[in-house]
Each structure stands twice: as C-alpha cells, then as structure tokens.
C-alpha cells in the first residue's frame, strides 16, 4: 500500500534538507510580499469599483511564487485564473495584472512563455501536455507546468491530460494547489480519494504531496519534478496543501460556507509569516529588512496602480485586431460599422 507523506523542508516536521540557495530564498520572500501586497491592494480597488472581479491568492503565496521560481523562463506555463503570482514570476508585470483586472489587457504580456489564464476549470491541462510534447519534439530542454486547484481534479480533462502525459512520458508537471475549497465545495465533497496526489498512480504518473505553505518544500519539489521530466522520467502530479484565506473572488463571501475555526487554524500557518520567521532565524533577512521590503512593495504596487489607471481608455475597434492574422471581410465590415456607430 502506497503512502502519501507530506514533503516538508521548514519546521519541526521537515523530512528533507533545505537546499535552496540563500539569494533564491530571499527573492521568493520578496515576491511573496509583493503578491500579498498586490492582492490586498486589488481587493480594495475592487471595493472602490476601480477594477473588476478579482481572485486573490492570499494564503497561497508560497505555492504560487516558489513553484514558479523553480522553473526556467524557457519553460511553458499553463495557468488558471488565480495564478497571477506565478505569471508575475515568469515575466508578466503586475501593471499588466491590474490592466487585466480592469478588463483592458490580456492575462499575459510580452514574450512570456505562458498561455492566457484558463478560466474554465482544468480544460487547459491537455495544453500543457501538448506544449511539453512540442518542446521535446523540437529538442528543447524545457518542461510545461499546469496550475489548477482541488476542484480541477474532478474534471474530465484532468484525467485525460494525466493519462496522455503518462502514455507519452511527456515532460510536464501538474501543479495542483489544494486550497481546501472550490468556491463553496470542500475537498471531501469533491472526491472520495484520501489524497489528490494518489490519483497519479492510476496513470503511471509520479505523485507527490507537498506542504504548500512551505515555500522551500514547494520550490524543491517542483525542481525535482522538473529534473525528472527533463531526464525523460515522465510527468509529476504535485498536490500542494495550502489554504485560500480570502474569498474565491471578490464576488463571494466565504463566511456563508466556510467555518471560521478552520480559517483561524490556517491563518496561524500563514506562509509569508512562516518564511519570514525562517529567514530571520537564519540571519538571512532581519525583521527590519522584512519591514523595508513590505514598505517598498506597497510603494511599488501603488505606482503600478497609478500607471495602470493612467492608461487611456481602450480603442473600441482594437478588439477586432487579434482573432485572425487577416480578418475576413464580414468581420472588417463589423469593425467599420462600430467605428461609424461611435463616430
């Protein structure tokens, strides 16, 4: 009988050593602070009507940030809607994330090797398999990593993707953030499996549970999965155990479905506080330095918001520009009609 221990690097229950280079640890901390600050700010902006519905990742910063730091910029990301943190690490600036929340930009930008965030659940997992396969065919030493949540493991595409990846031995990582809740539905109503990682077993795929609030464990687990994939040893399903401390999006109220006691327990496991304490104890980042990082993050995010809000309104006809390399005549006629309508 296979057991599914939880991989940990930080704290008294650690079952592996910390091999993360010190500068990487500090950078992960800085980016986690940035993401927390960004999410708190954006929730405020949403309440003020300055951005649209927004899915914050408060409580999941270790999983979001450390996982992406374990990748190369050449690797492909197939994110879902709560993964602006991972996208930021991979190369999408927060200004762009704000513009996306304002409905004015794509969820990706520049030359970043990522798909637009998938809004339907888990239907992007097969894309990661295809991206990984394409990379291998073209002789690139890169992997593809798909981000999704506990609810995603109930979708058919989760199973089709793992099955495909297993058969092809594709260099792909399925990174599942089990944050306890799919909007209002708890994991125990999502599946009768005791763990999500064990679903890998049925597909001949390596499965692993990781403490998703342990940034260093997340980093090392993804690194190891990446190395395994590049060595031709096939895909990995990582179940990162974490918790969504905030709402699913700014449009819902978790107190309607989620017991406060559970939230209190997880609030004590705040991944940001945990990494901060770990770094302070090892003399890598003092409390004063951490306070300075938080201050810089606030100023930086405020500037990003100002920059985003200073962008001009969208060009109404710009939406016609991208669907085809050459828009067909009827679409061009529709664009001209809109142009005339707005004068």
């Amino acid at each position, binding site marked *: 009988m296979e057991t599914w221990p939880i991989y940990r690097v930080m704290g008294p229950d650690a079952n592996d050593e910390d091999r993360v280079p010190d500068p990487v640890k500090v950078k992960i901390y800085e980016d986690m602070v940035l993401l927390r600050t960004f999410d708190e700010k954006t929730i405020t902006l949403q309440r003020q009507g300055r951005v649209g519905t927004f899915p914050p990742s408060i409580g999941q910063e270790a999983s979001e940030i450390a996982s992406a730091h374990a990748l190369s910029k050449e690797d492909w990301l197939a994110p879902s809607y709560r993964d602006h943190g991972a996208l930021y690490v991979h190369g999408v600036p927060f200004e762009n994330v704000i513009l996306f929340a304002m409905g004015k930009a794509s969820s990706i930008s520049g030359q970043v090797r990522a798909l637009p965030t998938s809004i339907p659940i888990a*239907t992007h997992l097969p894309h990661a398999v295809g991206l990984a396969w*394409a990379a291998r065919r073209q002789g690139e030493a890169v992997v593809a990593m798909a981000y999704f949540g506990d609810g995603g493991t109930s979708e058919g595409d989760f199973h089709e993707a793992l099955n*495909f990846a297993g058969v092809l031995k594709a260099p792909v990582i399925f990174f599942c953030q089990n944050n306890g809740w799919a909007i209002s539905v708890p994991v125990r109503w999502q599946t009768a499996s005791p763990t999500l990682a064990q679903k890998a077993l049925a597909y001949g795929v390596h499965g692993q549970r990781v403490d998703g609030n342990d940034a260093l464990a997340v980093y090392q687990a993804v690194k190891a999965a990446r190395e395994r994939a590049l060595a031709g040893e096939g895909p990995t399903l990582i179940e990162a155990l974490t918790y969504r401390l905030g709402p699913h999006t700014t449009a819902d109220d978790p107190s309607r479905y989620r017991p406060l006691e559970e939230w209190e327990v997880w609030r004590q496991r705040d991944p940001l506080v945990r990494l901060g304490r770990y770094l302070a104890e090892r003399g890598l980042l003092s409390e004063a330095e951490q306070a300075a990082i938080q201050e810089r993050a606030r100023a930086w995010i405020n500037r990003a918001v100002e920059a985003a809000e200073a962008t001009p309104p969208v060009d109404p006809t710009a939406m016609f520009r991208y669907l085809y*390399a050459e828009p067909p005549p009827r679409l061009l006629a529709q664009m001209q009609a809109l142009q005339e309508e707005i004068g």
Partner: protein
Amino acid sequence: MAEINMVTAINQALAELLASDPRVVLLGEDIGVNGGVFRVTEGLYERFGRDRVMDTPLAESGILGAAIGMAVGGLRPIAEIQFMGFLYPGLDQLISHAGRIRHRSLGALSVPMVVRIPYGGGIRAPEQHADSAEAYLVHTPGLKVVVPSTPYDAKGLLYAALAQDSPVAFLEPIRLYRLGRMEVPEGPYQVPIGPSRVAREGRDLSLFAWGAMVPLALACAEEIAREDGAEVEVVDLRTLAPVDVEGIGRSVRKTGRAVVVHEAPMTGGVGAEVVATINETAFWWLKAPVARVTGFDLPYPPYAWEEFYLPGSKRLLKALRETLRE
C-alpha cells in the same frame, strides 16, 4: 496526372506535408498502425514513425487539447476526430480555447492546427456515426471551417488549412471518400480558404451546397436543365467559416432565385446563415423566397430511415421547381 479518389488525395497531402515540414504531427485514434478507420492515414505510421503519426488514448478532449498545446508550442498538428458524432467531448477545446487563444493573448500566440473530421450520412453507418455538426463550429469565432467535395479541393484545402495562422476544422464527407476519381496533381498547391466554387454555371437559380450535397445538387441541376429547360447554378461553398459573403451575393444577384441544401437539421443550421447573407447582399434581386432543403430537426436516425431523412433528389427537385415557378 493520376486520377485518385478523396481518401487517396488526403493521404497524399498528409504524406507530402509530413515529408516536407518536420513540424507536422498527426494524432488521433487508430490513425497509426491501423491507418485510420477510413484508411486515410494508411502507410504514414510505417513511413514517419510513432512520434509523427501518433495513436493516442481514446479521448477527444485530450486529443484536441494536446493539439492546441502542440500548435502554440511550434508544431503543426493535424488531429483526427474519428467521426463527427464523437467530436462533442472535444468541442469545448475548440470553443473555449482553440478559437480564442489568439484573441485572448492579443495576437501574441496563435493556434495553427487542423482538425480532420469525417462527417455526414448515407453510408448505413451505426447510430451516432453520421452527424453533420458544422453549425456548432461555424458559430465559433476564431475557427475556420472547410468542407471539400472533390479530391482536388480536398488536397488543396488541406494544404491551405495547414498554412493558416488559425485553427481549421477540415470536414471530410464520408460518402464522397471513395465516390469518384479525378486528376489531382502531385506536390503542393492550395485551394484558398474563403472563396466558394461555382461547380456549375447557371442563370436561373443559385443552389448552395457543400460536402456530399454537391454531387446531389449537380445531378438535380442536370435534371432541371433536361426536363425544365432552366439553368441552375451550383455553388459549392467549400468554406463555411468565414463564409463567402461576396460569392453568395454575386451568384444570387445574377439568378434572382436561391435554394440552399444541407444534411444537418434545419433549425439553426448553416443554411439559415446563407439565407441571411442573401438577404443582406441580394434581397432586391430576389424573384422568389429562398428555400432550404435540409435534414429534419431530429437526431440522425438509425440507418433504415436514412434515405428518408437525408435530402435526396426528390426533395431537392421539388424545392428547385417551386422556387423556379414563383
């Protein structure tokens, strides 16, 4: 030049594309060792190997989803859906992703993939093997939809499909696979996506058809010429999305009468789109209401009924004569 049927023409195009472009990858159910249930991919696995001609797990969403990833990642995948009736588990991939990624990434990414889909009835197939579901695809922004009705167009449209920066659904009329041969050149050539083809010139009525309805339309046009002395123009649309607005309008402005024929159910079918296009481009030239001859608003029936379900010459001739009489 060799005279070949549509299966051979598509097989030839696939072989040439695999040989000339290392980015081309074929994937689907039973397309490798078995050469496809219709033998369209016969011999390709042996020639190009398992990494280029991939027998996949039996999962339509997985096939189309993986093809999307491959396309974004720099390959030129050609996926096969075994029968159009099995497309629906994968339809979400086309609607939610393939058709949108270019738009959602504001042009940064594109999905140059081809989905080959045998479709249509008339071959006494088991249930759910004879659907004509083109309307779902045509209604999906970002997706191009083509339907050849001749071996020449099949090969040329396949070349054109693979050269697109967009996903293309390539519908193969099962009934025409082996129904006739024609000269098809070896080597590359493109039949452009967009323009329709006037399959038979005529001055009295425009008959719009695609796929397996084109030979029926031509046969009925000949009969009308013989029996009624009227000349029906048969327009093979070939591309259903983006539809040839100009070509439809041009033909009806010339003839003043129109009929559209398709196998799929009437309600919400592509025929309705053709009628609306006529309304927009040729209304003041019309001498009679535009008629639709289609499958019934039913699921495709068990094959003992298919001769009654599918538009045949009796139903089409009646509509042509009524439209000519008005």
